[in-house]
């Protein structure tokens, strides 16, 4: 079986806002979400404040955005579950598949997460190490385990098909979309709710990321001179994937096609990218979609804004496309929504597919000047486009690369 897989719904929540419309509108008009953050944890310990730049979600916005469904049986919720539920709820409603019989038996839930329920883990260890108490909230394990967002989405929607979380750090949700697409393509299911979620702006994760030395003190400047690193974001993006036949049979609106997926592993260094395997992932994804490098593409770059990563990605794109690279246009929306780690790939694919449909490319923000090491055609302003193909890159720590190819429908 080799069925065409289409997208019939998207759900997004990030620092840009709640809902696909808000995320798209802000991204395409260049209204980025990266801004100062200050979260005081202990009044008498100012050094332990979360302070810097991030694309964060205001807690009151999150509370107001929770799905109007009975979520009681889901138990205690960490933010990474809340984000997943909000995005999945929007995606199934947009797809018009909420309550459809296919959801129960012929649907998969595949969600990418880079880490677990950080806030609950933090709270438990604060009790253990700071207060020296061994008593934790009884739901610490079930509510923080890395697989729980998938369980929660399945419980909310009544999905009884294959349901799992897949982890590959910053590429998690691209792998999730790719693997879910293959499940639909091969006929294991007719529908998949796939994407990613991450809630890593917590005290522990914040200082762990800071210790790694990859966070920019100013902002995210993909492929620009003066780029100083990545900026953390948070949120979720979920897509409803469906076989084309299934979508057409129920009269669904088709938003685009998920046509190709390529995945490789560097098997090299932990944090330094490898251009050869990055290139290979792009080539595999294009081949999987049956699209050649002569076809102009909108490229949604991984584009973290780190020195090595951006130069490696630019070189890989030039190697794959050669002289044809000039026909492509590169966007890098992490400059708007920050790096959502396990959720980035799905959010970027959703925004990229929307860009194809709208014929407009969202601008790369934070750009200072062109870096000769990153000589690729960047969308530095909102740009009208006529591309039919999207290439969406995600490259993770540990050398895990996943590239998705989308097509305008």
């Amino acid at each position: 079986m080799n069925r065409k897989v289409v997208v019939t719904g998207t759900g997004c929540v990030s620092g840009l806002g709640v809902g696909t419309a808000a995320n798209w509108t802000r991204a395409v008009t260049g209204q980025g979400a990266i801004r100062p953050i200050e979260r005081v944890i202990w009044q008498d310990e100012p050094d332990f404040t979360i302070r810097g730049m991030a694309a964060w979600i205001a807690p009151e916005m999150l509370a107001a955005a929770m799905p109007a469904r009975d979520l009681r049986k889901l138990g205690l919720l960490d933010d990474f579950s809340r984000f997943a539920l909000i995005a999945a709820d929007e995606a199934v409603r947009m797809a018009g598949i909420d309550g459809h019989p296919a959801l129960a038996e012929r649907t998969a839930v595949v969600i990418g997460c880079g880490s677990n329920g950080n806030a609950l883990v933090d709270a438990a260890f604060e009790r253990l190490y700071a207060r020296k108490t061994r008593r934790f909230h009884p739901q610490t394990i079930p509510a923080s385990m890395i697989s729980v967002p998938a369980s929660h989405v399945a419980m909310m929607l009544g999905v009884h098909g294959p349901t799992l979380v897949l982890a590959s750090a910053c590429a998690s949700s691209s792998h999730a979309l790719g693997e879910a697409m293959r499940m639909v393509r091969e006929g294991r299911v007719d529908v998949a709710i796939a994407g990613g979620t991450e809630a890593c702006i917590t005290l522990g994760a914040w200082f762990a990321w800071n210790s790694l030395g990859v966070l920019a003190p100013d902002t995210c400047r993909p492929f620009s001179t003066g780029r100083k690193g990545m900026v953390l974001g948070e949120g979720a993006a979920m897509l409803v994937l469906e076989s084309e036949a299934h979508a057409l049979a129920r009269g669904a609106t088709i938003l685009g096609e998920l046509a190709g997926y390529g995945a490789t592993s560097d098997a090299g260094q932990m944090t330094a990218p490898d251009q050869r395997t990055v290139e290979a992932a792009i080539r595999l994804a294009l081949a999987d979609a049956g699209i050649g490098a002569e076809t102009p593409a909108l490229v949604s770059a991984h584009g973290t804004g780190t020195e090595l990563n951006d130069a490696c990605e630019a070189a890989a794109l030039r190697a794959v496309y050669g002289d044809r690279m000039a026909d492509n246009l590169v966007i890098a929306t992490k400059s708007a929504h920050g790096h959502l780690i396990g959720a980035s790939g799905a959010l970027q694919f959703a925004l990229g597919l929307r860009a194809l449909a709208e014929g407009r490319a969202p601008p790369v923000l934070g750009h200072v000047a062109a870096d000769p090491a990153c000589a690729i055609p960047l969308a530095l302003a909102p740009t009208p486009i006529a591309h039919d193909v999207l290439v969406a890159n995600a490259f993770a720590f540990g050398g895990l690369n996943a590239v998705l190819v989308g097509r305008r429908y």
Partner: protein
Amino acid sequence: MTITREAVLAIIAEESRIPLEKLAPEATLIDLDIGSIDIASAVFEIEERFGVTIEPDAISRDFTLGQFVDHVMSLAPG
């Protein structure tokens, strides 16, 4: 912190995610669909808040809500 029936009920409502107005004292925990994990979570919060110790298995799902609250109140100092 002084234990009051109202404060205990508020914790049970929050930890079992049931609106306070639906927590009828004569209803059993089974009737209210309050599961063992909800009971454990409520017990944890009550112990945290009031510094009391509730023995494991002290609260059965056959209890009415009123019996649950009575048991907690019986642990109040003085």
